[in-house]
């Protein structure tokens, strides 16, 4: 499988009467985007904002972000959402590099009362910590259709899930629309991704993604708390890079599994970069446990078996955000280490005060952990001139205009172990 990812770098975005791309400037007709968002009837209204790195702008209630993609030959950019369900990861794909479509929305009926905040600052200290502060962002400030707000809706939770899927579908529609501007143009730079057989024998390594995304538009595991969990599955890394996975859940902002991060993954890309040089990258295992110990044990056994069949010596693993899934993540580590597969874990420290060790669960075999930051710690956000996405923060009573102190957990993507992040924690 050979993927050729062609980049069209974007340095700025401008309001325009038509969609255009020239000299690194993306021209956007925001009114046309509004109509595109509203045509499905899922939203009461939408405001489209163009924001740039360095702006005194704060985005709050962020749901997701995606990089605009276009396939010059026939094919789905985001299968199951935009275009039919068909395998991706092969052939040519265009990307608008340096652009993200970012969605924000208020809560709807069925959302948890405790709603995690997710903030993107375009300048200031928090802006140094995530790639989504360094992109030119086309922000869709969405207002849910009243049908999603009825508190008496039966199956409220399911309603919320339907709405959240609509947000992703809309975001991806806009992302596909924007990237279509590259039709007929030659990318400035093309990177080829192919797991060709290394010239010499190198250690075989897999990547384990502990997560529940939309996969080809379908649920990779049921989020229904009664039945969730599914068997781990094997993916080609090109599928991940090319739009097969879409963010599903609105976890803590800091470790949100944004679609943009699947498209621009950090560990996966680094394994690819060193493929054939230092190691032999053999594939990606998508893994999640379940609500009880049997489901967790089954998932661990199954993931371990896949890794044995792949004959790997080691695995790099990105954890799901905190909570009971950490239990199966640690069980997976223990299973692999005891079975002779070295595991390197990448995970955020989301619980506890500085003096707490911070683990909600751990095993002695977890000897190699990359920390994506002590996310329970607070960060001071400065005053900004513009706030997009709402007028009040979830969880914090101070005005979102700032200055305001929030935990790192509220900063979108700063503790991501899928996308790029730079936060870590050290002993003092």
């Amino acid at each position, binding site marked *: 499988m050979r993927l050729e990812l062609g980049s069209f770098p974007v340095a700025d975005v401008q309001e325009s009467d038509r969609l255009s791309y020239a000299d690194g400037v993306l021209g956007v007709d925001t009114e046309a985007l509004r109509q595109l968002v509203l045509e499905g009837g899922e939203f009461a209204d939408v405001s489209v904002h163009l924001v740039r790195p360095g702006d005194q702008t704060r985005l709050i209630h962020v749901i997701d972000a995606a990089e605009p993609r276009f396939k010059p030959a026939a094919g789905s950019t985001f299968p199951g959402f935009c275009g039919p369900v068909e395998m991706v990861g092969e052939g040519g794909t265009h990307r608008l590099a340096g652009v993200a479509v970012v969605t924000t929305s208020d809560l709807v009926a069925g959302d948890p009362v405790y709603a995690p905040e997710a903030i993107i600052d375009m300048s200031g200290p928090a802006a140094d910590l995530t790639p989504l502060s360094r992109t030119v962002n086309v922000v869709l400030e969405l207002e849910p259709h009243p049908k999603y707000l009825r508190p008496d809706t039966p199956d409220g939770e399911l309603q919320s899930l339907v709405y959240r899927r609509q947000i992703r579908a809309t975001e991806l529609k806009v992302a596909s629309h924007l990237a279509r501007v590259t039709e007929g143009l030659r990318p400035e730079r093309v990177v080829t991704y192919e797991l060709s057989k290394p010239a010499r024998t190198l250690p075989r390594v897999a990547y384990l993604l502990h997560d529940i995304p939309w996969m080809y538009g379908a649920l990779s595991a049921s989020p229904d708390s009664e039945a969730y969990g599914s068997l781990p599955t094997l993916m080609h890394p090109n599928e991940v890079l090319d739009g097969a996975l879409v963010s599903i859940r609105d976890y803590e902002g800091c470790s949100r599994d944004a679609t943009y991060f699947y498209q621009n993954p950090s560990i996966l890309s680094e*394994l690819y970069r060193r493929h054939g040089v230092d190691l032999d990258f053999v594939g990606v295992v998508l893994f999640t446990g379940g609500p009880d110990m049997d489901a967790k044990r089954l998932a661990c056994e199954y993931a371990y078996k896949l890794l044995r069949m792949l004959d790997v010596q080691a695995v*790099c693993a990105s954890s799901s955000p905190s909570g009971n899934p950490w239990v199966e993540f640690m069980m997976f580590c223990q299973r692999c280490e005891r079975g002779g597969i070295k595991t390197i874990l*990448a995970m955020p420290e989301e619980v506890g005060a500085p003096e707490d060790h911070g683990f909600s669960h751990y095993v002695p075999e977890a000897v190699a*952990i990359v920390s994506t930051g*002590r996310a329970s710690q607070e960060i001071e956000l400065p005053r900004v001139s513009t706030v997009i996405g709402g007028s009040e923060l979830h969880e914090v009573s101070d005005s979102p205009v700032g200055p305001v102190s929030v935990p790192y957990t509220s900063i979108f993507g700063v503790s991501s172990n899928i996308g790029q992040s*730079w936060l870590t924690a050290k002993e003092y």
Partner: protein
Amino acid sequence: MSKTRVVHYINQFFAGIGGEDQANVGPSVVEGPKGPGLVLQKILEGSGEVVATIYCGDNYVNEFEEKARDAFVEYLRRYQPDVVLAGPAFTSGRYGLACGLVCAIARELGIPAVSAMHPENPAVELYRSRVHIAPTAATTAEMLDSMSRASTLALKLAGDQPIGPAAEEGYLSRGLRYSQVASDDVGVRTVDMLMKRLRGEDFDTEWPVPTYDRVRPAPPLEALEQSTLAIVTSGGVVPKGNRDGLQSARATRWYSYSIAGRPSLSSEDWESIHGGFDTTHANRDPNRIVPLDVLREFEARGAFARLADTMYVTTGNQSGLENAIRFGEEISDELVKTGVDGVIFVAT
């Protein structure tokens, strides 16, 4: 800029008073540097000055903590230091505890404080969260290096600069974790760690899992009167002459000795070879460490069924954690094998 005022703490041995025989001397203070303080003074040169040296016997501090505390508070108030430096204590447990105590008192008075000791000094676990501790080698041969690490830290703490992460600043982790921005992203760091593991090179986890785990308490004995008990001690009590050559410090072995038929441990036949304290009192009456006489009395009275014929002995003096764990495991094997139900453990 005025020189940083340093108060130095040392024990009776380094103060030149004497060894174990003088471990009970009470606290004193003198102006200027003393003993290893002369090395410290030389390292500080233009930037700081040892204004006073506090010293005390190791046993005194640990047995009369309140009295020692009152004296230390008074000395610190008298000399108003910018920073306190205690030690280095290397692997000496009691000296380490004294250093920790002095530093903790200084911190309570709002004075920055640094100690220096070996990472496996038992005092580290007790004081690391409250006091910055510079790691040292196991022995005094490394005095200069140890002292210079501690003094660098002391000067930094005395100043206004914020102190960085433990690994970068050269102190033992206080068990606090704070976020930091790394120079490489998570992908580069993860795959770097992967390659180090694959190549068999040393690697540092960024988030250590706790090692001092809590052991679930063993269930209580249901019927003490039907139970077999065994004696385990880290007091270095051996048959007189120490025929096995149990080490008096940094023990790497343990031994088992028969106490079958003995009503008590007589001073003719037994002695403590422990190198960490004055054994005069124990050698006059070894039952002061191993209460065999009293245990026999309880046994005869039927309080418990039987005292095991074997007693397990090592020396708990500057021993590393790894050895201690191994001893525990090995002795457990014997206890399980011989059907022991409960243990009386005397630690010195």
